[in-house]
């Protein structure tokens, strides 16, 4: 086991390279820039494609292009840059080509700041772009996990011919942790039956998201939806900690979850039995497992670095019989373990309705 200390951004970049990344296109933005910088050196070294695009718009469309040509391709950005990619993402989804997007979320809205945030949840999970589509959204909470998820993201993207998002934040992107890097994969692959490689010895192929006839477009949508149901059936991922005996369940993802873990340890030290439920796939959301848990543990504290975005999904999962509290920090503020601990301590079993949210905003 060869543990090395890696910065998150660089670790994700290297994991992508080892996972078979053949073409990267990106544009600098904090706190993701180190990822691009790393690849600006690494990709040419390996003879693979790297372009610093003129913008995120161009980057996502270069990705779109490379994806149609059959490449394992990726871009990375942070919140405002991801907003600029929404049209391109909708096209990519509509034309069913695979790609990987890394979003190192930061504080918003607007220009906001470069501190860690999780307020792209809705944008990534509910579809920031137009039309009915989903991306498979993976939220790592350690660098090791980010590495593993990124390494395998290309397979997922290809399996479902769609978008896989690694949703992390500046905490994950800029911190360093020990990592065991997976081995380098061979690149190059057989023709997959849809990629544009020149119509040699076969009828030409067209990759397009147009269905001018609504009947045709509806068929495309039906195919997409069927695939999404498949993903929902196969790919739901989550992690649980100390839920067996818990009286209270903290629900959090990504770096908020690891911070919550510290609070939970402290709470347990004080005799409060708290467990952690951490969705790893934000879409598909682990509704079912969370619903099961909520049957047994009907008091939940949702902790997010936003004003309550995953909260909706938690509510959808657990229904109104559970007491759901929310603790959110916004605009790049990171919730501290002590704050979460205070919330855990102070959680009274008062019911909360679906209509009105209990948002603690400092």
């Amino acid at each position, binding site marked *: 086991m060869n543990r090395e200390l890696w910065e998150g951004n660089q670790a994700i970049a290297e994991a992508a390279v080892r996972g078979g990344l053949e073409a990267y296109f990106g544009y600098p933005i904090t706190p993701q820039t180190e990822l691009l910088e790393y690849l600006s050196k690494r990709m040419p070294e390996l003879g693979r494609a790297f372009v610093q695009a003129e913008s995120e718009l161009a980057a996502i469309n270069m990705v779109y292009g490379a994806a149609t040509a059959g490449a394992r391709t990726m871009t990375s950005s942070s919140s405002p840059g991801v907003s600029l990619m929404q049209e391109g993402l909708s096209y990519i989804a509509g034309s069913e080509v695979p790609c990987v997007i890394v979003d190192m979320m930061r504080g918003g809205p607007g220009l906001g700041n470069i501190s860690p945030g999780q307020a792209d949840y809705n944008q990534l999970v509910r579809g920031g772009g137009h039309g009915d589509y989903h991306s498979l959204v993976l939220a790592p909470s350690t660098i090791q996990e980010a590495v593993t998820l990124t390494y395998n993201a290309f397979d997922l993207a290809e399996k479902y011919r769609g978008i896989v998002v690694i949703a992390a934040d500046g*905490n994950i992107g800029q*911190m*360093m*942790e020990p990592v065991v890097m997976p081995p380098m994969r061979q690149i190059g692959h057989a023709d997959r039956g849809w990629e544009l490689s020149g119509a040699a010895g076969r009828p030409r192929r067209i990759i397009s998201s147009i269905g001018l006839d609504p009947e045709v477009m509806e068929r495309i949508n039906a195919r997409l939806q069927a695939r999404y149901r498949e993903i929902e059936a196969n790919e739901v991922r989550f992690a649980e900690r100390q839920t067996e005996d818990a009286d209270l369940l903290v629900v959090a993802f990504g*770096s908020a979850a690891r911070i919550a873990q*510290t609070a939970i*340890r402290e709470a347990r030290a004080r005799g409060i039995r708290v467990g952690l439920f951490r969705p790893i796939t934000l879409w598909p959301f682990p509704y079912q497992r969370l619903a099961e848990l909520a049957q047994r543990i009907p008091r939940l504290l949702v902790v997010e670095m936003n004003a309550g975005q995953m909260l909706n999904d938690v509510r959808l999962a657990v229904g109104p019989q559970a007491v759901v509290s929310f603790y959110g920090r916004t605009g790049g503020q*990171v919730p*501290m*373990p002590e704050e979460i601990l205070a919330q855990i301590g102070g959680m009274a079993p008062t019911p909360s309705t679906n209509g009105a949210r209990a948002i603690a905003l400092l």
Partner: protein
Amino acid sequence: MHEEIIIAGFGGQGVLFAGQLLAYAGMNEGRHVTWIPSYGPEMRGGTANCTTIISDEEIGAPVVRRPSTAIVLNPPSMDKYAPLVKPHGLLIVDSSLIAQQSGRTDIREIAIPAKDIAAEAGLAKAANVVAIGALIAATGIVQFETVVELLTLKFGQRSQEILAANKRALRLGADYVLKLPA
């Protein structure tokens, strides 16, 4: 063992490197470690700080509000972090640049003229390494030798001279603390 160390100073004082050095050392000694930087609004010349956590357990939050140890290399960082060190914690202050004292009685405070010592070691920039030497001597958080190895890895190929100066800085920092009245 679970130590949270904040190192803070001006950009360019090598605070980020110092934090990484600790993290590497912790990792090489088989511990869980995290390191995380935080930048001010300014590109350069502003303040910079980082947090290194070294622990026997898996690490949750990589950021802390109240560290168990703070190493401060400039006056604004002193102002900011001295009050935040946990009771019974440790505060290491570069007294070459910081005149004031924290006034706290519930922590251990080490004032060390790190910059001057670094100059004495032959590398004025190595105040950060002096401070790490002091930290090791005061806490034993990592082995002195582990850090020497890392310095060798880092500077050994580039310049024997710089490596030697850094080793001296580390040693002098540690010695300064060891010689303090207990």
